[in-house]
């Protein structure tokens, strides 16, 4: 029998607000334990939450970007369970009226587009971080993370393969980064992904029992875990067994999922409306105001790069993968240099330097204006491309302007005819062999002679002129 996988994703992203969602504490990630805390996020007696308006705005921005309907009227609810990572032993979350619902995200897999439904995106508070000493003993709780705003984004069970799940996560992360609502750093836990996986015979309308895979540290890990789960479930069913509905962890070293908690022991969270907060009202005007702040999203921008700059699909995709890179490119082009060379320089030499030095484009010392002026120097023949290749690492290291460095180092291309004629005559005189070869009909020898010219001028000779002039000189002295 042939099976198909039915997968839904739940993604938690920490929103990068300055302060926590219900108090004024900082959300900074790596502060010493229990320093970003106050009576409110510690759940002291007598405190009350006050919702962070910015967290609502960021959530709504995500909702709009994911084509969701933004609730005009929603509310916060209490999710009750006892665990030391919750200061109040309830989490303020959203239950039946999420802020954003019924959206979709289009992904591309193997060149075709697929629409993944977004069931909901709701705002809640993050929990504290528990630490345990190995081998038992004391446990500690760090409340720095407790109360950091968290957006939970849940898809419909529309995903059919690990590859699609990977594409979904990549695309979602790209949008979240474009919106600048989260760092999306899986290692620091600012993005966490869980997959709900079941399989069913192809053509069946019913769902099989699902497992939930949690605590995976990377997108590729999620992809592998899903592939593993699909195979495992198929094996269970084909062996006459039944898939147990449960939560499973992912062992990245062994490449397997393992049972963590059976669903029977699942909590009854006893949700009820949070009486300490008033209903969340997002009227049309506020939604429009937030919508107006949204940047052009990656898919639209990529399409525009193809049409506006006549770049290939591939190049446009690379340049628009991250918003700062796309911004960098556009600023460079807006300085008046042609689109294609700009793309080549950024994706080629500049990207190589960034990779080598493990830097983000935002930290690059070469400003787009400076890169544009370097490209302009090539375009107007002041320097050669070869000189520029040598020049870029220095611009990268020093942040100096291209013009200044070219003048400082005397790298201006030699385009003076008489100077180049003199060099050409010298080269002809000192290389009788290749000269004879050329005159004997070996065109190739010309390349050697031009190379000698470049060498003699330390690369500064205008290559086209060098070529023309040595040809003329060879003709003259014949």
């Amino acid at each position, binding site marked *: 029998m042939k099976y198909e996988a039915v997968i839904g994703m739940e993604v938690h992203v920490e929103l990068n607000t300055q302060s926590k969602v219900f108090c004024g504490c900082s959300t900074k990630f790596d502060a010493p334990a229990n320093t970003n805390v106050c009576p409110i996020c510690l759940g*002291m007696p*007598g405190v009350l939450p*006050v919702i962070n308006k910015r967290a609502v705005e960021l959530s709504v921005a995500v909702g709009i970007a994911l084509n969701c309907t933004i609730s005009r009227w929603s509310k916060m609810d209490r999710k009750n369970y*006892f*665990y030391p990572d919750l200061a*109040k032993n309830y989490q303020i979350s959203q239950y039946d009226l999420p802020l954003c619902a019924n959206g979709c995200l289009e992904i591309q897999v193997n060149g075709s587009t697929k629409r993944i439904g977004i069931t909901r995106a709701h705002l809640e508070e993050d929990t504290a971080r528990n630490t345990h000493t190995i081998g038992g003993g004391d446990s500690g709780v760090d409340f720095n993370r407790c109360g950091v705003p968290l957006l939970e984004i849940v898809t419909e069970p529309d995903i059919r393969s690990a590859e699609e799940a990977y594409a979904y996560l990549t695309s979602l992360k790209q949008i979240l980064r474009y919106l600048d609502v989260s760092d999306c750093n899986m290692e620091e836990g600012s993005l966490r992904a869980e997959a709900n996986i079941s399989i069913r015979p192809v053509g069946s309308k019913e769902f099989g029992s699902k497992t939930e895979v949690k605590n995976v540290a990377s997108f590729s890990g999620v992809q592998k875990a899903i592939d593993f789960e699909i195979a495992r479930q198929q094996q269970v069913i084909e062996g006459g067994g039944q898939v147990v509905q449960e939560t499973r962890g992912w062992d990245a070293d062994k490449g397997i999922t393992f049972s963590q908690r059976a669903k029977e022991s699942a909590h009854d969270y*006893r*949700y009820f409306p949070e009486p300490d907060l008033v209903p969340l009202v997002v009227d049309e005007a506020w939604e429009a105001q937030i919508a107006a702040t949204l940047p052009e999203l990656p898919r639209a921008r990529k399409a525009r790069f193809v049409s506006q700059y006549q770049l290939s699909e591939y190049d446009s995709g690379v340049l628009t993968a991250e918003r700062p890179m796309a911004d960098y490119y556009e600023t460079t082009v807006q300085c008046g240099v042609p689109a294609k060379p700009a793309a080549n320089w950024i994706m080629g030499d500049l990207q190589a330097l960034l990779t080598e030095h493990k830097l983000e484009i935002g930290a690059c010392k070469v400003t787009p204006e400076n890169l544009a002026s370097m490209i302009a120097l090539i375009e107007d023949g002041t320097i050669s491309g070869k000189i520029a290749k040598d020049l870029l690492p220095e611009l990268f290291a020093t942040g100096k302007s291209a013009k200044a460095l070219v003048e400082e180092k005397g790298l201006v291309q030699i385009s003076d005819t008489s100077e180049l004629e003199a060099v050409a005559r010298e080269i002809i005189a000192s290389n009788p062999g290749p000269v004879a070869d050329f005159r004997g009909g070996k065109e190739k020898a010309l390349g050697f002679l031009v190379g000698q010219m470049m060498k003699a001028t330390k690369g500064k000779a205008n290559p086209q002129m060098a070529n023309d002039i040595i040809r003329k000189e060879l003709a003259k002295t014949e």
Partner: protein
Amino acid sequence: MSNSWYEKTALEIRDAVRAKKVSALEVTDSCLKRIEEVDGKLLAFIDVWADAARKQAQAVDAKIAAGKDPGPLAGVPIGVKDVLCTKEGTTTCCSKILKGYRSPFDATVIERLAEAGAVFPGKLNMDEFAMGSSTENSSIQRTRNPWNLDCVPGGSSGGSAAAVAGHECAVALGSDTGGSIRQPAACCGCVGIKPTYGRVSRYGLVAFASSLDQIGPFTKDVTDCALVMNTIFGRDPKDSTSADIPVPDFTKALTPAVKGLRLGLPKEYYTDALGAEMRDKIQAAIKVLESLGAEIVEVSLPHTDYAIATYYIICTAEASANLARFDGVRYGYRAPGVANVDEMYRKTKSEAYGHEVRRRIMLGTYVLSSGYYDAYYLKAQKVRSLIRRDFMDAFKQCDVIVTPTSPTPAFKIGEKTADPLEMYLSDIYTISVNLAGIPGLSMPCGLTASGLPAGLQIMAKPFDEETLLRVAYTYEQKRGFEMGMPAALRG
């Protein structure tokens, strides 16, 4: 005269202090001495802050000496129910689970009163976590009624009511979730108001039932009530449920004028459940207002019968979550000798909570459980809306509603502790006010034959405390008697 500053009203004290006729320190000393003399009988205070209170009084005196405005409550001693967070002393809600807990901050009401020049002599007894109607659920002590030491002071703010009635402090703060200010005020013969929900910031009030809780004052008369309301009312950015509605000068509402005002008498409140003696007292009070030109209108609050059930579902549900944080992890009591975290939760809570608190947590957990939520919690919310609508409909026909505060006067200590349902009935006339979110005030309307105070309750439209005060003030001026010194404390 100078020996009896403790007997004065807040208005008298602040006027005298501001006019330099007496120092705030003298008033405070008088009050502290009074506590020393009578609190052994009343057991209203659980903690007396003599040194801190004197320092606060000296600061007020220093302000006056420097020619600065000492505030509208300069030198007024205000006792604090132990449910309010104070940096001074401990904040325990009279529960073993918070024994020794010191709050890192002052409640917004405490900040505002301190700013207004008030002096805080100490913390007052209450039912554990404000759950009860007799203050017998305190883990610390049983407060006595100043009119009869064998009787309860009412609850849950019994310490606050007894302290004001016993002249230990001019004013006390209480909290009212289902009648916890008005019922003890009625039992002890003082004035107590539960403001409109949202009028007073709840920041620093340890939550029992968040959608019902309001802080309010106990005072010796209606004027003092208005005076304190002027200071503690108003929007607080720390409490999202506090209303952004302007606060008038409530003392301006204190005019004896009820001519043409319509007093609504809900027929569902005047039934056989109300004792004959209580009924007579209330009717006499209504007669006084009628004689001054008020119009009497019979109104109906048809969902009254469902109020107690509705209240106990909603308040216990909210309480079950509000009290979850007392788990022994970060502060308060932690059971010793536990093997794991689940055992720590179980033992800590079992050992530290009293019976009534445990009962309500279990009830609240039950009504929120999956499979029961719709039948209990959700239905209760719907009935709550109907109860609120009853009041809004009634207020189309009348300006205030006048009822008894409690079906009986104060009962004997120990009389109702064995029967929680009997105890819950003490609040049948007060809880609807919390469910509807409207303001309600209780004031004395005489003594019963056995010498216990009877309480008159006046309710008004949301945010219409001015009309409520006007009716209360008029009655107080024209009722023709003074409450005087409670019997058990007379010379």
